């Protein structure tokens, strides 16, 4: 695939991520903060998000497996995940977190467990998509092109 085709593919891919609600305006804000002095800013922030989310998902799994679930603790983790997903523009993850917090408030175990499944799913989707996007960007850069923003 030539450079122009790659660049077009990237633009189309990004557009679809916004259209399908995986990313929102906040992701655009992050891209705007990237410049030649900080060329890896977005990748770095997203990587932090991946690490942090995986930690939180593990904590959530453990917390919901307890005999007596500490909903405050669960809520605290979800609140963090909601915050970080919002900070990078991972809209679908953020939305599930909102529903998740409602179930925590209701102390609804089934609802929480369902939401955990959902949030894991949305997280892995957005992770895969962002990784694909970064790969595409890397291909473009390696071919000597620039990233269309």
């Amino acid at each position, binding site marked *: 695939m030539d450079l122009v085709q790659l660049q077009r593919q990237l633009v189309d891919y990004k557009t679809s991520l916004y259209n399908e609600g995986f990313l929102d305006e906040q992701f655009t804000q992050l891209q*705007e*903060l990237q410049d030649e002095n*900080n060329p890896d800013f977005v990748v770095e922030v997203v990587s*932090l998000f991946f690490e*942090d989310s995986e930690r939180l998902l593990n904590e959530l799994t453990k917390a919901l497996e307890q005999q007596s679930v500490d909903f405050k603790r669960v809520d605290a983790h979800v609140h963090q995940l909601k915050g970080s997903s*919002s*900070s990078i523009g991972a809209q679908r993850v*953020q*939305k599930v977190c909102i529903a998740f917090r409602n179930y925590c408030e209701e102390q609804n175990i089934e609802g929480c467990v369902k939401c955990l499944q959902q949030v894991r799913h949305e997280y892995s989707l957005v992770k895969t998509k962002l990784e694909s996007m970064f790969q595409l960007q890397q291909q473009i850069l390696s071919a000597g092109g620039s990233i269309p923003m």
Partner: protein
Amino acid sequence: MGMAADSEFHVLAVDDSIIDRKVIERLLKTSSYQVTTVDSGSKALEFLGLREDDGINPNTPSVSPNNHRWRLQEVEVNLVITDYCMPGMTDYGLLKKIKESSSLKNIPVVIMSSENVPSRISRCLEEGAEEFLLKPVKLSDLKKLRPHMLRTKIKSHNGKQEPEELGMPDEKIGFPSPKQEEQQQQQPQSKNNKRKAMEEDVSPERTRPRLNGITTMV
């Protein structure tokens, strides 16, 4: 104040989320401020020089001075921007401690929160916060910070307490900002009544426009 004034401003950013610290740091640096980030209210107080003993605190990994030397009380902080809700310190905790301290109370404090709760906003402003920003914070939100930092610099110059007597200097228009699209100043800031300015800026009606494009809120 000359064109270099922006880089003379040092902001202390406090947030327990590593992601948010990274983002706010980039936002502040893009706005030409010097930045130090810490991950807790107590570390913020340490950095500001408020501590029980007089011992020199060792550098801790979670504090990133960002090329600043860890020299307590020699580092001037022109503004503190902090997350509202962090473990280890009660809500408003950092804000209150700063405002109760004779040495720190003139440092403007800005609160960030992911939740748009009008009572929370009012309470923060009552406790002395200059602004309340809804997360995720945007570059355009940071434009609101400069007037507060300028006012402090002038205050220490004139030794005056009342914002009413200061007004805004004419050279405010000249400050370049890398990503500034317009030279717009917050007009309400130059009004005499600080409280009124706050309400105009951060009334619930005003916070709603920030929600455009943010698809969710609690």
